[in-house]
């Protein structure tokens, strides 16, 4: 059902991100770097009126990737039982998606449609987006996902809709692989597979957003800890030079999140303010500013639905509704699971040092991540405190972002 073109073009995303190996990025992080790189290139080329082509988009990242540099990788030990649970969870999600049983309606309305249009035009077609008839397609939304879809159909006339839908599986699998620790992998995969199914996110931007957020959290938490351990945990051998490389990966992932969804920009700003005050934070902030300038100068904001003003009178109702939505319809189990992982972690530290995710100062990142999650929730309340807010439509999808922050706070604290 998925075309060979879609598979090849998706594999080429890894090629486009291979330059990040210079910063000791893992294979998973290559994909994040590739998507961010292609998106930025596609926007820049559109801005200067140059139509996309595969060689044109790949030439710069490939040249950078070919510049030699040593890039040692950490070996990882896998705990078989947890790995099986993670794989089964991913398989269940894959079966659900490929049965077209968890597809987002917005995929057909605008995520896939915009990819189809951009791919045909081989440009980020701002004139199309500005057209008042197309206002329901959310012209102002960041374009990474449609641009990824457009990338996969360069040279073809039609988007591979099944392939695009299946990319949600890839994003969840890569996000799972980006998490350190076998038990954490299993918990994340099982929890988010369920949430992805319940929220029908296949084809829309949430899978990509969660992927970038996970990569950013993982790299930044490692950087905050100073030393990253995976297979090296048992030997307690420090990866002394890890921090700068992790910072590059974090910057890439934050760029990806910003270019994927509005919530990604909020995530990135909170992430930088509370956890990641590094020099490289300027890169995602510049990308955010550049996207806003591009959208503004091309009139993409002016065409969106009328925005109703924030109303203080709606803050309390929004809080109450959000408190209900926080349950995910699952009796608050995702939060309880993360909380339990955090609460039970310290005792485990003495019993099972070999299971450590981070070796030294792991909890440095736990509190800022928790604070960022809480502030994100407060931001959601303010966003929804409007008379026309459709909280029940979107809240559980948006809540996956603070859940990622809470998850990382939990596994970092318990390390």
């Amino acid at each position, binding site marked *: *059902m998925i075309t060979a073109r879609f598979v090849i073009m998706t594999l080429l995303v890894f090629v486009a991100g291979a330059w990040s190996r210079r910063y000791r990025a893992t294979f998973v992080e290559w994909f994040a770097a590739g998507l961010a790189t292609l998106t930025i290139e596609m926007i820049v080329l559109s801005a200067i009126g140059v139509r996309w082509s595969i060689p044109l988009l790949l030439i710069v990242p490939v040249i950078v990737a070919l510049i030699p540099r040593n890039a040692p990788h950490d070996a990882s030990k896998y705990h078989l039982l*947890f790995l099986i*649970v*993670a794989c*089964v*969870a991913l398989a*269940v999600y894959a*079966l*659900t998606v*490929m*049965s*077209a*049983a968890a*597809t987002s*309606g917005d*995929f*057909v*309305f*605008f995520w*896939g*449609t915009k990819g*189809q*249009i951009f791919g045909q035009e081989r440009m980020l077609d701002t004139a199309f987006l500005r057209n008042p*008839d*197309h*206002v*329901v*397609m959310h012209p102002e939304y960041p374009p990474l996902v449609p641009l990824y879809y457009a990338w996969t159909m360069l040279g073809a*006339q039609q*988007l591979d*809709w*099944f392939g695009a*839908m299946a990319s949600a599986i890839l994003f969840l699998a890569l996000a799972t692989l980006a998490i350190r620790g076998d*038990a*954490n992998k*299993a*918990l994340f*995969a*099982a*929890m988010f*597979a*369920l949430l992805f*199914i*319940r929220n*029908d996110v*296949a*084809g829309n931007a949430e899978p990509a957003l969660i992927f970038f957020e996970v990569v950013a959290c993982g790299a930044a938490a490692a950087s905050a800890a100073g030393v990253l351990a995976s297979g090296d945990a048992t030997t307690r051998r420090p990866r002394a030079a890890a921090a700068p490389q992790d910072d590059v990966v974090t910057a890439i992932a934050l760029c990806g999140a910003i270019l994927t969804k509005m919530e990604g920009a909020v995530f990135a700003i909170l992430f930088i303010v509370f956890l990641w005050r590094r020099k490289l934070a300027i890169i995602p902030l510049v990308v955010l500013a550049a996207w806003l300038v591009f959208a503004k100068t091309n009139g993409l904001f002016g065409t969106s639905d009328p925005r109703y003003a924030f109303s203080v009178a709606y803050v309390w109702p929004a809080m109450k509704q959000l408190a209900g939505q926080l349950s995910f319809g*699952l009796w608050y*189990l995702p939060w*309880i*699971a993360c909380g*339990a*992982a955090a609460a*039970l*972690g310290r*005792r*485990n530290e003495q*019993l*099972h040092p070999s299971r450590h995710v981070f070796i030294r100062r792991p909890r440095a990142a736990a509190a800022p991540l928790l604070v960022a999650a809480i502030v994100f929730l407060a931001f959601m309340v303010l966003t929804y405190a409007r008379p026309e807010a459709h909280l029940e439509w979107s809240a559980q999808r948006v809540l996956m972002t603070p859940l990622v922050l809470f998850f990382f706070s939990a596994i970092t604290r*318990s390390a």
Partner: protein
Amino acid sequence: MTRVITIFLFSLGFLALSVRELVARGGVSRPRTVISHSGLAPERAEAGLLLLQYASRTLPQYARVALVKPRGRWDDAGMLAVAHGQLPRQHAVPAGDMPDFIIAIDAPLEDPHFEKIYEAPAGSIWKRVR
């Protein structure tokens, strides 16, 4: 050890709930469209997309095609968005923009300028005749 067991049990719980969701949504199947088992009315959505796929295959390339719900014209903008994605060989246009063809979903088109050329469970395809 307590943490490991706890995480394992939570993971198994989430896994079981995922399987339950999959079963509740019709189990594993080979869908005909990307939304065959999704949304509030999957059968209607599937039939609609199949009609659009037929139109994409059979209508002339570059023809101007509008997609409407005659009994739900408030949703014209949404229908236009869907048409843009599903009719890559044709030009999707608003219904009021002199289309060569109109695809009417759910109900027949009541416009003397068009005559029906195809009918399917989800709707019909109409061609401009005058």
